[in-house]
C-alpha cells in the first residue's frame, strides 16, 4: 500500500475493483467523455414529454381499472394464439435443438458438422426474434405460423448452444465405458451421454417455455400472430385500459409459468 509519503499516520483503504490505477483512471475518464457525448446526442423534446405526462398518468391509472371486457374477444383470441405458439414452438424447438446441439459439441461431431451447427446457432442468436419474424412473415404470410417458426429458431439458438456446452463438459469416463461395451453410436449417445445432460436439458426447456411466451407477446407487432398484435392495436387507439388488462394477463401468466417451472426444477434436483 502506498503510504510512504505520510509516515506516522497509516490509513487503510479499500482495495479497488481494478488494480492498476492508470487503467482505473483511463476507464473512468473514457466513460465520462463517452457519457457526455452520448447524452449530448439525445434530443429530448421536453415539451412533448411534458404533454405526454398526462397520458402516462392515464396509463398508470388504467392499471387500477383494467378493462378486460370491452375487447375480450380480441384479447382471448390473441392469448390463445400466443399460448398455442408457445407450446408448439417449444416442442419443435426442443426436437430440433437436440440434433443441432449434438452436432455443435466438439467432442461428438466431426469438424464440418460442428461448423455448420455452430453457424446455425450463431445466426439464430445474433438476430433479434423480431428481425427473423419480419422475414418469416414475408416468406410464410401473416399469422401464427411465422411466429411459431421464429420462436422455434430462437429456441434452437438458446437450447442447442447450452446443450452443446453441457455435452462438451460431460465426464468422458462414463461415455468411454459405454463405448467399450461395443455400443453403437445411438446407444452410446443414449446411455453414455443423455443421462448426464438430461436434468439440465429439462430445466432449460422449462425456462424456455416462459421465454417463448414472453417473446410470443412481441412477434405480433410485426404481424406474426399472438397477443402482441392486440396490444399494439390497443396502444394505437390509446385504449390504455385494454392495454393494461393485456399487460396484467401477460405478467400473471409469466409469474405462473416461472413459479411452476421453479417447482418442477426443484423436484428434479
Amino acid at each position: 500500500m502506498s503510504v510512504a509519503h505520510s509516515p506516522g499516520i497509516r490509513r487503510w483503504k479499500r482495495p479497488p475493483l481494478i488494480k492498476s490505477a492508470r487503467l482505473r483512471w483511463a476507464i473512468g475518464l473514457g466513460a465520462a467523455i463517452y457519457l457526455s457525448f452520448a447524452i449530448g446526442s439525445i434530443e429530448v423534446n421536453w415539451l412533448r414529454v411534458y404533454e405526454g405526462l398526462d397520458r402516462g398518468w392515464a396509463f398508470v391509472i388504467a392499471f387500477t381499472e383494467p378493462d378486460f371486457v370491452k375487447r375480450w374477444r380480441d384479447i382471448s383470441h390473441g392469448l390463445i394464439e400466443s399460448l398455442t405458439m408457445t407450446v408448439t414452438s417449444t416442442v419443435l424447438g426442443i426436437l430440433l435443438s437436440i440434433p443441432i446441439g449434438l452436432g455443435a459439441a466438439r467432442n461428438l461431431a466431426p469438424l464440418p458438422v460442428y461448423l455448420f451447427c455452430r453457424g446455425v446457432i450463431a445466426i439464430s442468436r445474433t438476430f433479434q426474434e423480431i428481425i427473423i419474424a419480419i422475414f418469416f412473415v414475408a416468406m410464410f404470410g401473416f399469422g401464427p405460423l411465422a411466429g411459431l417458426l421464429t420462436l422455434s429458431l430462437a429456441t434452437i439458438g438458446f437450447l442447442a448452444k447450452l446443450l452443446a456446452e453441457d455435452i462438451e463438459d460431460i465426464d468422458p469416463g462414463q461415455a468411454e465405458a459405454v463405448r467399450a461395451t461395443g455400443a453403437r453410436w445411438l446407444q452410446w449417445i443414449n446411455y453414455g451421454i443423455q443421462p448426464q445432460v438430461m436434468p439440465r436439458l429439462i430445466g432449460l426447456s422449462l425456462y424456455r417455455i416462459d421465454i417463448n411466451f414472453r417473446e410470443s407477446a412481441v412477434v405480433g407487432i410485426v404481424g406474426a400472430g399472438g397477443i402482441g398484435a392486440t396490444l399494439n392495436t390497443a396502444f394505437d387507439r390509446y385504449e390504455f385500459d385494454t392495454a393494461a388488462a393485456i399487460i396484467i394477463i401477460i405478467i400473471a401468466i409469466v409469474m405462473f409459468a416461472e413459479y411452476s417451472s421453479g417447482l418442477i426444477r426443484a423436484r428434479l434436483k
Partner: protein
Amino acid sequence: MPVGGQGIARTWQRRARSRQFAIWFGWLAGTALFVYCWQLISETTIWAFFWDSPRVAADIFSRMMPPRWTYIEVIWQPLWDTINIATLGTALAIVLAVPVAFLAARNTTPSATFVRPIALLIIVSSRSINSLIWALLLVSIIGPGIFAGVIAIGLRSIGFIAKLLYEAIEEIDDSQVEAVTATGASRSQIIGYGIVPQILPAFAGISVFRWDINIRESTVLGLVGAGGIGLQLQASLNILAWPQVTLILIAIFATVIVSEWVSAKVRHAII
C-alpha cells in the same frame, strides 16, 4: 425392484407398472396438447403460402444481393444512436436496480413482509414485459425518439439486473458481514464494507452481460419508433430496398459480434 413376467421368466424392468403408466399417460397428454395446438395454428395458416416459401425466399435473397455498401454513410449515425440507447439504458437500469435489489434480498431488506414483495413485484413486472412493448408504450406516451428507447431499455433491464443482483446478495458470506458489524459499524457502513465488496464482481459481470443483451434489443426498437438502426431497417423494408436491408443486417451482425466479444472479455477479466 420392479419385476415383470412369471416364474422363471422374470425379467428386470426399470419402473413399477403404475409409474410406467403415469409416464405413458403424461406423454399421451403432452402429445395431444401439441397436436391440438398445432391444429389451431394450422387452421389460421394459408398453406399455399408455406409451400411457396422456398421460391419467395430465393426471390428475396436474389433481391438482397449484393448489399448496397454506399448506404453505410447513412447508417453510421443510427448505429451510434443504437449503441447509446443500449449503454444509457443500461446505466439508467443500474441506478434504479441497485436499490431494488437491496430491498429484495432477504438478508438486506428492511421488511420481509412489506417491502420485499413490492420489490419482487417490480422485478417480475419489469422482466415479463419485453423492451419492445415498453418502447411501444413509451412512444405513445412521450413521443418517438431515442429518449423513449433509452427508457424502454432501462425499464426492461431493471428486473434482470435486480434479480441477478439480489440472488448474489443472498449468497454472500455472512461471516464477513458479522465481522464488520462486530466493529460497531453503522448500517450503511455494513453495506459498504461488508456486502458491497463481495458482490462487486458479480455486479460488474451482470451489468456488462445486460449491456450486451441490450445492444441486441436496441437494434429493433426503431421498428416501433424508438430510435436507432431499427428506424432505418423499417424505412428500408417499407420501400422494399432490399440491398439496404442486407447492409443493415450486416451492420447489426457486426455490432452484436463486437459487443459480445467485449462483454466476454470484460467478464473474463473480472471473474
